[in-house]
């Protein structure tokens, strides 16, 4: 359970920092960079979540298929 909480905090941290960078870049009128930063942050988190979901599927497989 400990590792799950860690990952949630990490996602929250990345979200906060990306949001800060987005606002700062937005304020000085570099909208296109702000959007790229947000997009990359989103993709990174997506990959992280995808790997965790994959773990979950492996666990379900091992429980129900008795491998």
């Amino acid at each position, binding site marked *: 359970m400990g590792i799950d909480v860690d990952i949630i905090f990490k996602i929250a941290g990345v979200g906060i920092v990306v949001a800060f*960078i987005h606002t700062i870049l937005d304020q000085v009128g570099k909208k296109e960079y702000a959007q790229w930063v947000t997009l990359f942050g989103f993709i990174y988190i997506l990959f992280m979540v995808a790997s965790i979901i994959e773990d979950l599927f492996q666990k379900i497989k091992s429980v129900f298929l008795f491998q």
Partner: protein
Amino acid sequence: MIKLIGAAIIILATTWAGFEAAKHLALRPKQLRQIKLALQSLEAEIMYGQTPLQDAARKLSKLVPMPLSLFFESFSSLLSSGNTTVKQAWEESLERVWGLMALKQGEFEILVQFGETLGRHDRHHQQKQILLTLTHLEREEAEAIDRQLKYEKMMKSLGFLSGLLLTLLLL
């Protein structure tokens, strides 16, 4: 423990990079002001002192602060060595110190163009050229100040935040 030290080092490094970029932005209007001041002194030397160009340049090199003083020093010594034209000496010394300045290509062109007119006309014509160059530099300075106000703060906070993001990604 070692992770914490690494994270601190990364954040420190990116923050420093941000501050360095901000300093570069602040340096440009400052150096433009110094160049303007130097040109005004040069005008005074030409109009009222009627000093020869190499003496005027040597005087100016003592008057202005560091990177610019190197420029006038080199200009003066190239002129006293005697086997170049004023234009060549001006351009060569400009290229020599350009790496130390925080200025852009536009200012370089303005100064090179000024160097082409230097020492080719009578006093009043020369004064007009100096005034023209000063006007150009003033325009550049206004733009530089604008950029400084806009981006200086952004560079500082962006440096720190990108460090934070990097450590979070590597955690």
